[in-house]
């Protein structure tokens, strides 16, 4: 297993009683924005867009269910996991690093940092589609909030250094040779 930051347990416990509906609405809005701005995601998913993928972020208080074809992501209590076709399990830090191009999904899997169950084809298609989209969650969240991306991305850089979480897309370093 790779050394990675974990969400503080106190934070996870404090968030547990919060209502899920507003969180699900926000996550769904983010999902719809991402699939609209990056149409290659659904194109690459093809028939796998129909798969319901459960993201079990082990240090988070809730489970997340992604249904790409319907553009929905919903939050669920751990005690009541929803029906799903595939399940990906790992720390929040592993998901964020993979999403932002800082870590390789296969390597996280080989090292035991990520585990998958169910429809392996759907998980691979999702991983490949998101990797090609080169997402930057900080920039996307800034756009949803209607604020300029640059300050938020700079703040995310500071937060990365303080927390160890990868919160922005890995910057291109320019040609090395």
């Amino acid at each position, binding site marked *: 297993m790779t050394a990675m930051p974990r969400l503080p347990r106190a934070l996870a416990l404090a968030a547990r009683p919060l209502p899920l509906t507003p969180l699900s609405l926000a996550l769904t809005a983010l999902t719809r924005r991402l699939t609209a701005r990056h149409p290659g995601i659904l194109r690459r998913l093809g028939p796998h867009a129909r798969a319901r993928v459960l993201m079990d972020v082990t240090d988070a208080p809730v489970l997340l269910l992604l249904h790409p074809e319907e553009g929905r992501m919903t939050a669920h209590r751990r005690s009541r996991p929803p029906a799903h076709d595939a399940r990906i399990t790992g720390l929040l830090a592993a998901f964020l690093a993979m999403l932002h191009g800082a*870590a390789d999904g*296969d390597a996280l899997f080989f090292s*035991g940092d990520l*585990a998958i169950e169910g429809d392996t084809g759907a998980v691979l298609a999702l991983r490949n589609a998101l990797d090609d989209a080169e997402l930057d969650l900080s920039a996307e969240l800034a756009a949803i909030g209607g604020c300029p991306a640059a300050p938020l991305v700079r703040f995310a850089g500071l937060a990365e250094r303080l927390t160890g979480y990868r919160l922005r897309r890995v910057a291109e370093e320019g*040609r090395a040779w």
Partner: protein
Amino acid sequence: MVMELVCPAGTPAALRAAVEAGAHAVYCGFADETNARNFPGLNFSREEMAEGIAHAHVRGVKVLVAINTFPRAGDEAIWHRAVADASHAGADALILADPGLLAHAADRHPGQRLHLSVQAAAANPDAINLYAEAFGVRRVVLPRVLTVEEIAAINREIDVETEVFVFGGLCVMAEGRCSLSSYATGQSPNMNGVCSPASHVAYSGEAGETVARLGGFTIHRTPKGQPAPYPTLCKGCFTSGEQTGHIFEDPVSLDATRVIPALARAGVSALKIEGRQRSRAYVAEVVRNFRAAVEAVAAGRPLPEAALLGLTEGQAATTGAYAKTWR
């Protein structure tokens, strides 16, 4: 002279990452059964291929298009169209395996540079010279079953370039001939472009273990939290009689960094990194490390220390057949 570094790209993002990281050439394929990495969510549309080639060419990087599965009788048009489209998009070379497709490409696209895919399993001078003379093949990708001495001996008897794998997934079979995946799933890299297709892979947690199955066959059982390999039959852990072990090969990856100087002395022209199914993070890190290595070898400097073990299957690496005797 610097050996050419041939790097994988399963997506346009990975192609750009490879170019940025120092690839001399990038290899990729169309999103269909014409290439041997026909995995879900991977590969290039015709438009993406043309854009990718243009992006690479502006930066002085070549693009090699793999059309390296074997056409189905009656469906040759799919493969012929791939050859024509890659050629028209400006591919610097086509990587082919099937003699019929090689004949078609040589006949219909006479100016197009052709490489012989590892899927052709050409592992001796007679076979390689036949492909060179009959179809004008300019480079052969050698199977991953030869020692450095055997590669040197082959190079003394052929006039075409050789390319060898130096990193990534390790196929230990007669590539293009292996039917293990077909036996378990009905699909193979040779005809469908997939070895151990993800659609037939299932992981499940059972009694403190992660169980990996392919087409219903149990390939591995690993304690939860331990490195879990992808269930390919040739790297499976099987029980026979009272013995349990890896029959063909352990689930390890190839890392031939330390034999690059010997490969250069053996006359190898190009080094290939496996991993079109991997992410842009993998591509960037591996390419950057290997570019530093080939530059060091060309300049007569010691090889730089690489730290790529974390990217390998089983978190373990081998120099494969390059420095190995078979059981």
